[in-house]
């Protein structure tokens, strides 16, 4: 299994500012995933982060808006840049352990005013 923590748990930010979300895993993992969960909608994958290489972004998400760092095998950050109210969402960090079991962090609840 994997235990994932995220910081901050929630934040209220002004439009135009940036927020960096931290994700810490209790074991070394190759790949980390960042998701967005908007009310009433399914989890949407933003990007996949490998240690030591550039993150791979899904369609509709770009590095300038959501830069990701992956400095080691237990840690990653996601920055939401130049925020607008449309970025208000829950952001979730996830890892895969044991081959197929996907574990999620508690999420960061972001409100942009």
């Amino acid at each position, binding site marked *: 299994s994997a235990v994932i923590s995220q910081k901050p748990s929630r934040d209220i930010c002004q439009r135009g500012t940036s927020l960096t979300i931290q994700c810490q895993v209790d074991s070394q993992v190759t790949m980390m995933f960042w998701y967005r969960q908007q009310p*009433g909608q*399914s*989890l949407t*994958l933003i990007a996949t982060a490998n240690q030591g290489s550039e993150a791979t972004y899904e369609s509709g998400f770009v590095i300038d808006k959501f830069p990701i760092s992956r400095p080691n095998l237990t840690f990653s950050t996601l920055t939401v840049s130049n925020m607008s109210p449309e970025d208000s969402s829950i952001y*979730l960090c996830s890892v895969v352990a044991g*081959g197929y*079991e*996907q*574990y999620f962090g*508690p999420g960061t609840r972001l409100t942009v005013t």
Partner: protein
Amino acid sequence: QKEVEQDPGPLSVPEGAIVSLNCTYSNSAFQYFMWYRQYSRKGPELLMYTYSSGNKEDGRFTAQVDKSSKYISLFIRDSQPSDSATYLCAMTPAAGGFKTIFGAGTRLFVKA
């Protein structure tokens, strides 16, 4: 058409009832099927995992996959108030978290 369709509910049942949660999908390449439970203000937690068609039972929970109909179900027997949560189905063509597609989730309320 979404790749995965899931009725958002809410679904309200009395304690002890049998709950049936369902998803349909359109991509025949999906091979791995999962159900996650998400409590309010928490991240999703994996409940059940099934490969290909068939049934899988774990305590009060039973997962069914019918690939011919592109239909998956989660049954909860003897439902408890602690089962009140949002249940998300998820599926992927390959293990490892790649290209996992999630349903929007069904909110379940079990009344004492």
